């Protein structure tokens, strides 16, 4: 029973990270119907920025804050410079552009920071503070994710800018007609997504260690989480993330063994897409001829 509870709690912690990444994916999907394959690599790059700052002697939380801000501007720039130009292009073109971003970010990081695996510090204490079933880092990850969620909720619910962004996602044309600068709202969405991804990266790096390919598996779980919750529903992404995290851990511990964990994500993705493409909380869309 203890082992089981331990698996569940560490699954929740992983799930919180997947939820953040899923949230970033949903943020971009909601407004532009693009699935950003480079989301994981953007997060990885941000994490390296944080690592460089911490190594340069900045305190952890300062580096954390600076990274979140820097990632915001990186995301914003990518949208304004590259993604903007292919906004209405066929899906294949979009996929190719995102793949290009993925490999460029991956190799630039490898170029600057080399491919050797690095240790990334955790801001949370070594000894468990919250009982025997969950380490402090895991508890901290869940806490940070909850804070991020709360802030996002407050932003979208109670600020004019948040309202404008929601309106853009809902109906871009009408928003434009009522004076919202749709283009900038989309860029802001990219910026926010990059920031959320950066937080996910910094939270997962102490667990998986820092290397340029660290996010490929995490991205897969993030995608599974986003699809499970319904790719256009932020709330669903969080629930999906937690479900995927726990499911992954339990399946890994009791059913398929740790070596086939990624295959669980593959099965989840394909299963959801086939049997319930809208996910648990997604909206149904009717396509017109």
């Amino acid at each position, binding site marked *: 029973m203890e082992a089981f509870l331990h698996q569940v709690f560490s699954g929740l912690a992983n799930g919180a990270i997947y939820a953040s990444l899923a949230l970033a994916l949903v943020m971009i999907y909601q407004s532009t119907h693009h699935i950003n*394959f480079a989301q994981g690599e953007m997060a990885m790059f941000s994490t390296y920025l944080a690592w460089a700052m911490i190594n340069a002697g900045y305190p952890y939380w300062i580096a954390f804050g600076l990274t979140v801000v820097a990632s915001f501007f990186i995301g914003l720039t990518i949208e304004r410079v590259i993604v903007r130009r292919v906004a209405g292009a066929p899906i294949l073109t979009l*996929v*190719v552009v995102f793949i290009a971003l993925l*490999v460029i970010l991956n*190799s630039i990081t490898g170029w600057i920071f080399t491919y050797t695996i690095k240790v990334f510090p955790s801001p949370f204490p070594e000894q468990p503070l919250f009982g025997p079933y969950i380490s402090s880092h895991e508890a901290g990850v869940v806490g940070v994710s909850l804070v991020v969620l709360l802030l996002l909720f407050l932003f979208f619910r109670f600020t004019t800018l948040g309202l404008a962004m929601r309106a853009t996602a809902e109906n871009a044309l009408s928003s434009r007609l009522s004076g919202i600068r749709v283009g900038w709202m989309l860029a802001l969405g990219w910026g926010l997504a990059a920031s959320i991804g950066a937080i996910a990266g910094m939270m997962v790096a102490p667990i998986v260690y820092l290397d340029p390919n660290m996010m490929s598996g995490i991205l897969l779980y993030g995608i599974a989480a986003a699809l499970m919750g319904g790719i256009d529903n932020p709330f669903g992404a969080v629930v999906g993330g937690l479900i995927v995290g726990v499911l992954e851990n339990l399946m890994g511990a009791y059913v398929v063994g740790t*070596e*086939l*964990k990624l295959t669980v*994500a593959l099965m989840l993705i*394909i299963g959801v897409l086939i049997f319930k493409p809208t996910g648990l909380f997604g909206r149904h869309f009717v396509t017109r001829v």
Partner: protein
Amino acid sequence: MDGMHVNKTRLIVIGIAVLVAFLLPFVVGSYRVFQFNLVLVYAIVLLGLNMLTGYNGQISLGHGAFYAIGAYVAAIMMDKLGVPYWATVPAAGLVCFVAGFLFGFPALRLHGHYLALATFALGISMPQILKYKGLEHWTGGVQGIVILKPQAPFGLNVSQDQWLYLFSLFVALFMFWLAWNILRGRIGRAMVAIRDHPIAAEAMGINVAAVKTLTFGVSALYAGVGGALGAIVVQFVAPDSFVALVSISFLIGIVIGGLASISGVIYGAIFIQFVPNIADEISKAAPWAVYGLFLLAFVFLAPKGVAGLVQLLWGKAEASWKRTRAQKTTLQS
């Protein structure tokens, strides 16, 4: 459409290309022969992927998985069952056809981004499946399988590398001829119609589901044949040779070479074989940076790839040649 109509000049160009390909192993060093052999292997895989993605519009970011299955089928048959190398190629193709056909069923329900996602997931999780302990007896686990290079038959006076190259060339020519026949016929037109407007295609009586799953199967068959040849050429298979980046480099190959173009896959194969080698000299990270930059450049500047550029230049040259000839005849009369 490129490669569909055969006129005299085109036939001559193809003839010269085949002749050059035949003579190549006898004029370059054995390492270059090995490299060009891989170009042939990649060309076969890219041809299959281009049928699926370029002609049929189904995006696959996981063709490395079928390539891996083909390679493993060949390696296991040679190493564990003692099957001769040439017999493993069609067998690998068949196994992959079935695998692709089965994957094509769920793919039917997935459009655009979603299919890209599902195949992306397939590509990422493939190495883990190959490392799986339960299959270790067959796959050799993390260590992989080492296979022996075949000897040239009939007492031919060519080296092993040269023979393998010629064998791959025969297979490649056959696969190209097959693809050309599929694509210019009824099925090929149905594939393009489904890509351009699935609903209209269905209204015209095309069985969309059948054509799409069949295309997936055939495309996987090409990847499997390429994988089997690749395994024999490299003499080694291991899970870590089939990471997700392999699938991505295949996609890069067809985008650079030219989507929906038969000749384009050759340019694409040359690109993914040689450009990383050249870029590697700058830095370990450089190949992928170069890949990414080329991808962006081609998407924005030359969406039809190298094949499109070649066709453009060819058309211009032909037009100017005709013009000068027309001027000459008017002057004479």
